[in-house]
């Protein structure tokens, strides 16, 4: 068969690779932006590790004492990190016990129940909570919440205590959890809700059993960031939880968290070679580890229960 006439004077296309300078520049810039955050993280870990090594190289300091005892006073040979870890765990746990259920509940309300008008009023108010400086929260805990707790518990609760600090920390984290969870819930396709409603599901059944599990990976991210904020929060616990290491899981007692301790000690006079100075880096390293472990646990829990849509 003869080729059609027009194929004989076929036009030539230039399909050779072109060098596009703007593409290359953008790619390089984006790569640099990515690498910068990785580099920063590595630099922090390096610095922490280097200084912490100086601490662990002191003959008197052993990993056994560090992880196996419960008194922290490096100046007199007590190296039990649990004195500080316990307070961090207690305050963070209280904060999450407050912020997780309340944050999730308000997220479900905002995304599934609230009218558009209600949402446009409530969301900005919630976001104002997130803009309050933490030092204000700290004094709010000490001067407002603690007296209220004292009126109930009397002398059972100390003036500086983990409960008040943890509660207020929970209020601080609440808008974060709520806002991120609401985004995750709203992102669940409407078709899933309709499918549930069409089967005679109530709003509650649909919200809790269909929408919530489908949004769990986004909610998981909210939980992880919430935990990280709680473990790393410094000002509230420094102001309201107490200033002195105390190995205790009783929230009514005063105790010092890892962050609070670092803030207090580094705020005083410190010589660079003192054990107090190098010990701070060991605490920071521990803080880093605790955050990492808690993040891994929550990631694992979320992966176990989430239901992925498309």
């Amino acid at each position: 068969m003869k080729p059609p006439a027009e194929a004989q004077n076929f036009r030539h296309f230039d399909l050779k690779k072109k060098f596009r300078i703007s593409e290359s520049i953008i790619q390089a810039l984006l790569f640099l932006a990515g690498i910068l955050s990785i580099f920063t993280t590595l630099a922090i870990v390096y610095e922490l590790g280097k200084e912490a090594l100086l601490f662990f190289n002191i003959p008197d300091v052993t990993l056994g004492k560090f992880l196996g005892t419960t008194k922290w006073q490096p100046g007199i040979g007590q190296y039990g990190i649990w004195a500080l870890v316990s307070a961090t765990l207690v305050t963070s746990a209280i904060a999450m016990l407050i912020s997780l259920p309340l944050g999730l509940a308000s997220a479900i309300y905002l995304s599934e129940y609230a009218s558009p008008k209600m949402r446009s009023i409530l969301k900005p108010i919630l976001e104002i909570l997130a803009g309050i400086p933490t030092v204000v929260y700290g004094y709010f805990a000490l001067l407002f919440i603690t007296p209220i707790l004292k009126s109930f518990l009397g002398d059972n609760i100390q003036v500086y205590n983990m409960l008040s600090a943890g509660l207020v920390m929970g209020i601080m984290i609440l808008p974060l959890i709520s806002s991120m969870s609401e985004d995750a819930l709203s992102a669940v396709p409407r078709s899933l809700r309709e499918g549930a409603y069409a089967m005679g599901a109530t709003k509650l059944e649909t919200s809790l059993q269909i929408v919530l599990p489908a949004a769990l990976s986004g909610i998981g991210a909210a939980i992880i960031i919430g935990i990280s904020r709680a473990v790393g929060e410094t000002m509230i616990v420094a102001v309201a939880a107490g200033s002195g290491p105390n190995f205790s899981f009783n929230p009514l007692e005063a105790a010092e968290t890892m962050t609070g301790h670092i803030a207090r000690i580094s705020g005083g006079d410190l010589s660079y070679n003192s054990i107090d100075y190098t010990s701070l880096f060991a605490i920071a390293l521990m803080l880093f580890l605790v955050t990492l472990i808690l993040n891994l646990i929550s990631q694992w829990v979320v992966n176990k229960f989430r239901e992925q849509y498309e």
Partner: protein
Amino acid sequence: MENNNYAIETNDLSIHYGRFTAVKSVNMKVERQKITAIIGPSGCGKSTLLRAFNRMNDFVPGCFVTGELLLDKQNLYGKTIDPVEVRRKIGMVFQKPNPFPKSIYENIAWGARINGFKGKMDDLVEQSLRAAALWDEVKDKLQESAYALSGGQQQRLCIARTIAIQPEIILMDEPASALDPISTLRIEELMQELKKNYTIIIVTHNMQQAARASDYTAMMMIDDKRAGSVIEFDDTKTIFMRPSDKRTEDYVTGRFG
């Protein structure tokens, strides 16, 4: 005694979005255990009408209904009616398959459980999947995610989960429009099986599908105020062979617009 052959009836049913009337004065008697198709050009309110049958329009802000929708002599838009109970009696299959992000088994068990099913769940799951002609394809992977299924299988799963709650009526909103021709055929065959036990109302864009699969056809058309209405409702043969309305004839013969 009144004719008891009607599953659902409408009395001057109109659907409004705020001040805009989307569907006007529909009077339809839908016969039991038959397939009733709703056809008409895009935007004429077919889906809006269908979604009024199980009160799915309740979720659209500003949408309300006037007139009556009667199931078993009760007006489904009456003040004492619980829309959740309405949807338990009138199930719905959507245009795009929307299985829950759960296992195949759980997709069926969930609806039954929230509806208070007390019997043996394994049996119900098997029966429902068999009724939806899906059992043989999925019996070895009931615990796998529903998303592992093909589009056509997902749609049959959605039909199966609707059957599992044993509704009176199944509404289908263009159930095959997102599927390939073979899956479409399977859905149509399935509809013929299902009408032995259920009343089916289907919205379709596909004229051949309405002609092939349905017993009755309602033709909808939009007026100059953009309000849709049912201009002709008759048995499918009449609608396609001897329509009485010129607009129906133009539409079903492809001379429309």
